[in-house]
């Protein structure tokens, strides 16, 4: 038997025997995944905008962060503002994201001046 024949056998053995024993059903897998996807970016926060200035469609993730920013900048209508506030009071994950964005904004609002001595002045 030459090397090629031997390798064909190895290849055959791999295909026959090297696979997972338990397979999860498609529907079960999707149900579980779908819940995870829904919990990634909560609908209450999403901006109403569907596309950006370049007219390309926004992803759900982008709509989520724009929505949070609009809320932070008081750019949403009062009814939506209330809905988001209620959601933030209930949802720990979104509150964490909101605080992260708030912190980022605080940092951006300051301007830094670094001196040659290494000292930093916040203005």
């Amino acid at each position, binding site marked *: 038997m030459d090397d090629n024949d031997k390798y064909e*056998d*190895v290849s055959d*053995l*791999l295909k026959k025997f090297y696979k*997972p024993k338990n397979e999860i059903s498609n*529907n079960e*897998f999707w149900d579980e995944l779908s819940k995870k*996807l829904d919990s990634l970016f909560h609908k209450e926060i999403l901006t109403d905008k569907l596309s950006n200035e370049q007219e390309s469609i926004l*992803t759900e993730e982008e709509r989520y962060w724009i929505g949070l920013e609009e809320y932070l900048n008081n750019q949403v209508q009062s009814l939506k503002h209330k809905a988001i506030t209620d959601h933030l009071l209930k949802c720990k994950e979104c509150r964490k994201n909101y605080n992260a964005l708030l912190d980022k904004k605080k940092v951006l609002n300051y301007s830094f001046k670094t001196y040659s001595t290494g000292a930093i002045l916040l203005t």
Partner: protein
Amino acid sequence: MSKTITQYDDSELVIACQAGSKEAMECLVKKHQRSVTSLLYQLAPDWSDTSDLSQEVFIRVYRGIHSLRNPKTFRSWLNQIVVNLFYDELRRRPRRLPTISIDAPIESDHGESDLVREIPDPSMKPDEISLASELDHVIKKAMSQLPEQFRTAIVLRELQGLSYEEIAESIGCELGTVKSRIARARGRLQEILSPYIDKRQEKRTVNLNG
């Protein structure tokens, strides 16, 4: 007659996903879930959470599908996500040191060499064991003992049917490196599985001779 969503090919589904269709996402997931789970198992046969990792793969797909410029390349992009996740997990998980695989490559001054550690096997001889029941165990063990880079290359080539070029793209290395890793993995597997291959060959000869 209009097509149902299950009749669309990957690139059509990707475009629908990019337009925000969750139904298309569901279809893509259902179409590729088994192959992703299998690929993860083949890359990491010792990990018990391949199903959770498959979910993580599709979360990455969901988050990144808008950045996929050429929808026709979905399959290789998906493989790339699986391989990247595998390497991310390898880095994240604690290594089981100081154990070392007897099949781990022995480094020479010029890099990897084909030398292997010769350690006698005190277990039963292959011909003493029931072939069918042992093979899956033996193959799993042989694969898990291959260095990760060799295993990744051979899995993508043999079990996922990718070309050398696609593998190079998926794992981000040179074509020559891919070829060399596959050749070494093949050699290693041939060596380990040789007794079983001989036995299969003998069986075939007996069957042929009546």
